[in-house]
């Protein structure tokens, strides 16, 4: 006897068990004009989860600038933002978090994060050409944290490497607030011809609806709801809510999808990520102002009986929903057959507005598509917020009471071997950075990775950035700096920013102090984006990044990661990071500030947790970016590297270590020596210049109103500072390289 799914009743209690609030249950009843059955309630619980609905963030996200003449698809319109590259080409890019799955099951959590973000890109018809990631881990002295590191890195590597798209850049930051809740943010960048863009919109009443790719299983059911609650000691019981990735299927799906895109037989397509079939059917229908009839029993499954709610919510990976122009079904089947992938018609586009789901000819759910989605029925909240008490400590910071260390060389050694600054080669070596033969930075690194566009001969420059300590201390200023630094990385490379995607990782939004961090960070980000004229083309919000442990709740350091894409019209303009030639002069461009606040130096050497974010002047920052691009275009400098974590000395050491050439730092410190060497005041970049180009450099600096300070010269194999020999470069290089292998080598794997 078959179960009568249609008449399974629900109550407020059922709703609460599924993660919905009593008032949300009330709203669902009003939208439907009746109480939902269990299957329908499950649909709402997935779609109205924080993850899918952005219910606690959308109000503020709307304050971010979204437009520019180059924006082809604005935030929220498609699966990813789309930017015009000229020459008939466009670029789709997006960053997304997979924090909670990675906390529970680091390997699969991270792997499926990579898979998900790449699907967002190729579902638009774009071929991914570069991947990036931004990772946050806890205290590396904890074996548990190292286990997470090992799993996350292997997960990203195994998925991305097999998928065959190079991982070209990334960043890693460790702090104890991430100990139980790592952040795994994955970004993908793809390119496509402007005429071949696939839209995530259902069009054409009567058009068949297909599910393609992997078969559907019971993995990841309620994953979206899971990602929308705090991690607790019981979270390990949520293991089935974590999905399992199959990069091989994804690679086939990519090739089949792009082959299909070229046939013109697709009316619309969306990948299946969070909340699976219910998300893709409702979002595509709502965008198109249509409805759908879907027969859930026709979905290819991995075996075992699945209930309708499981089929609706399953987050099995490597699947797409495709609306095909009627009459062209055979073309679709032929291509998927070629690639040995499942391809099954499960429904049809109908006159709006209803989504109707059937199971063995029984109607099991009927919901207006609009009721489920952001901007439609999904709730939007404005949470109360309040300034956290620790802000008083931040404001009380007085640099005058911070003693200047006697031995500055020791501090430099300490900083260059700090896990946040030291070489991450232990991690990056596990990622294929060269497949695609387009990564121009694999051999010669730059502040931003440069990826060649084979079809136009131009190049993209891409980077990810965020210093969570700055954001924790001063959320608005910290988020503003994240945007500025990403743009500076592009400028140092010679590129012009086109747009950015953000991944907003915060604690529980129902905690007013966490919400204050969120609101402030958005304010700072919006200010920077407007100032630089860089549109936000989309991204992802991840709340609930905090762990309840016994009776304590620890929010993570707030981390609004910025992923930025820029264009290098002529790849020969590219400026690289390492010193190139002995005898080149070293110059500091930008203001020298009397600033140690917010630095790794203050936090880790002096153990001062609370100090403001470093100083930044947006006008000076912008002038610097224009100057750096002018220097690149005219081939004036031989190397450039922006001053960031670890300050000027770490910047110089990195330029030296990557080249094997030492330097002699001669400029007497215009401010207190520790601020000069270790301060992280913004809007600065170190460049190397051949002596015969010095005048050209100074003319350009003068024209842009950017201060230039002669620091010294590229010289020999030693580090010399103010007349003192700090020893062979090799010693610093060894310290820089040894940190991560030493830490990760403690475990016997």
């Amino acid at each position: 006897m078959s179960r009568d799914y249609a008449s399974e009743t629900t109550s407020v209690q059922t709703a609460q068990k599924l993660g919905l609030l009593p008032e949300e249950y009330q709203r669902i009843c009003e939208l439907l004009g009746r109480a939902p059955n269990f299957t329908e309630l499950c649909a709402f619980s997935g779609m109205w989860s924080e993850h899918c609905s952005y219910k606690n963030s959308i109000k503020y996200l709307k304050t971010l600038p979204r437009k520019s003449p180059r924006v082809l698809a604005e935030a929220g319109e498609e699966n990813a933002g789309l930017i015009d590259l000229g020459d008939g080409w466009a670029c789709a890019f997006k960053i997304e978090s997979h924090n909670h799955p990675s906390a529970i099951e680091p390997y699969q959590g991270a792997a499926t994060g990579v898979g998900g973000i790449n699907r967002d890109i190729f579902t638009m018809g774009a071929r991914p050409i570069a991947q990036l990631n931004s990772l946050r881990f806890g205290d590396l002295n904890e074996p548990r944290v190292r286990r997470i590191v090992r799993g996350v890195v292997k997960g990203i590597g195994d998925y991305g490497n097999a998928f065959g798209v190079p991982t070209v850049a990334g960043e890693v930051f460790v702090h104890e607030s991430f100990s139980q809740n790592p952040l795994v943010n994955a970004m993908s960048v793809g390119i496509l011809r402007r005429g071949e863009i696939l839209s995530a919109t259902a069009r054409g009443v009567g058009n068949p609806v297909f599910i393609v790719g992997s078969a559907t299983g019971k993995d990841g059911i309620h994953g979206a709801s899971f990602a929308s609650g705090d991690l607790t000691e019981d979270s390990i019981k949520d293991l089935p809510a974590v999905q399992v990735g199959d990069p091989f299927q994804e690679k086939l799906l990519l090739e089949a999808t792009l082959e299909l895109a070229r046939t013109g037989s697709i009316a619309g397509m969306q990948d299946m990520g969070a909340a699976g079939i219910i998300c893709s059917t409702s979002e595509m229908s709502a965008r198109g102002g249509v409805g759908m009839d879907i027969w859930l029993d026709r979905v290819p499954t991995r075996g075992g009986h699945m209930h309708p709610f499981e089929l609706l919510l399953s987050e099995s990976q490597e699947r797409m929903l495709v609306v095909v122009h009627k009459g062209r079904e055979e073309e679709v089947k032929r291509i998927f057959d070629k690639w040995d992938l499942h391809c099954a018609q499960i429904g049809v586009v109908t006159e709006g507005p209803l989504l109707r789901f059937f199971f063995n000819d029984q109607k099991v759910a009927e919901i207006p598509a609009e009721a489920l989605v952001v901007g439609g029925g999904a709730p939007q909240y404005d949470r109360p917020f309040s300034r956290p008490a620790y802000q008083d400590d931040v404001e009380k910071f007085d640099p005058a009471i911070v003693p200047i260390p006697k031995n500055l060389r020791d501090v430099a050694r300490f900083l260059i071997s700090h896990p946040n600054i030291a070489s991450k080669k232990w991690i990056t070596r596990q990622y294929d950075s060269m497949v695609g033969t387009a990564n121009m930075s694999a051999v010669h690194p730059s502040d931003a990775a440069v990826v060649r566009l084979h079809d136009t001969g131009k190049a993209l420059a891409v980077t990810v950035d965020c210093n969570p300590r700055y954001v924790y201390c001063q959320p608005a200023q910290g988020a503003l700096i994240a945007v500025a630094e990403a743009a500076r990385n592009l400028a140092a490379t010679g590129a012009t920013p086109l747009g950015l995607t953000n991944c907003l990782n915060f604690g529980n939004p129902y905690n007013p102090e966490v919400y204050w961090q969120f609101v402030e960070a958005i304010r700072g980000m919006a200010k920077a984006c407007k100032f630089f004229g860089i549109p936000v083309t989309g991204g992802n919000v991840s709340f609930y990044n905090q762990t309840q442990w016994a009776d304590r709740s620890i929010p993570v350091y707030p981390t609004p990661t910025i992923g930025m894409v820029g264009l290098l019209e002529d790849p020969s303009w590219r400026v690289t990071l390492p010193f190139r030639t002995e005898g080149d002069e070293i110059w500091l461009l930008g203001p020298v500030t009397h600033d140690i606040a917010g630095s790794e130096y203050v936090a880790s050497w002096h153990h001062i947790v609370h100090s403001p974010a470093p100083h930044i002047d947006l006008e000076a920052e912008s002038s610097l970016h224009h100057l750096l691009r002018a220097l690149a275009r005219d081939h004036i400098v031989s190397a450039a590297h922006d001053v960031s974590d670890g300050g000027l000395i770490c910047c110089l050491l990195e330029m030296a270590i990557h080249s094997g050439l030492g330097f002699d730092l001669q400029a007497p410190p215009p401010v207190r020596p520790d601020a000069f060497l270790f301060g992280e005041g913004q809007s600065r970049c170190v460049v190397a210049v051949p002596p015969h180009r010095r005048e050209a450099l100074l003319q350009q600096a003068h024209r842009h109103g950017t201060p230039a300070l002669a620091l010294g010269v590229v010289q020999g194999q030693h580090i010399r500072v103010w007349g003192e020999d700090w020893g062979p470069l090799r010693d610093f290089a060894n310290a820089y390289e040894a940190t991560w292998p030493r830490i990760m080598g403690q475990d016997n794997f």
Partner: protein
Amino acid sequence: MPVKAGIVTFPGSNCDDDLLRSLSGLGYEVEKIWHKDSNLPKVDLVCLPGGFSYGDYLRSGAIARFSPVMKEVVRHAGRGGLVLGICNGFQILTECHLLEGALLRNENMQFICASVYIRCENSDTPFTRSLSLGQVLKIPIAHGDGRYYAPMDTLKALEDKGQIVFRYCTADGNITPESNPNGSLLNIAGICNRSKNVLGMMPHPERAWVDYLGNEDGRWILESPLKQALNLLNG
């Protein structure tokens, strides 16, 4: 007469387009071959590209050897036709017994992507005739299963017959344990068959052939069959 190369695409191959771009760029006439094809087009050189054929969930290359086109590839090799397997292609060549030995999980159990040095151990093969004996090349590797293994007697035979073509070395050409990235026996990075028309190598020459990649050492290998066919080499 143009020199023709065919590149086999298996499901999961991901270096096929890179190989195509490099071989075309160097002057070959290149076509792609679908793994389900049971006929091989008339080509001088068949290439098996890198990637993760069938996901490599079983032993790397173990399923790809059963692809329909592989029978023809083996026949092509038997006729003396040139076959080049890179990375996953090398693994497939050992699985289908065109080459001896096996590629095991890297010694450190991790995927490794890096630029490494290899030394030419035999410059008398169609793939190395541009090189001189002992010449050192810097070539990228990117693999999880690259540790070459073969029984002692096989290794000895490989050495005796000059079938070891490339070995991992230091920048100045010394064969040392430190220069061995994956634990391969005898630092082996590439071997050929007895008649020297089939070469398998873990490093990726197609990732180092043009200025914008910052390394052009791979040309030495990729151009060899072309130059030989065009009689541009002495002898």
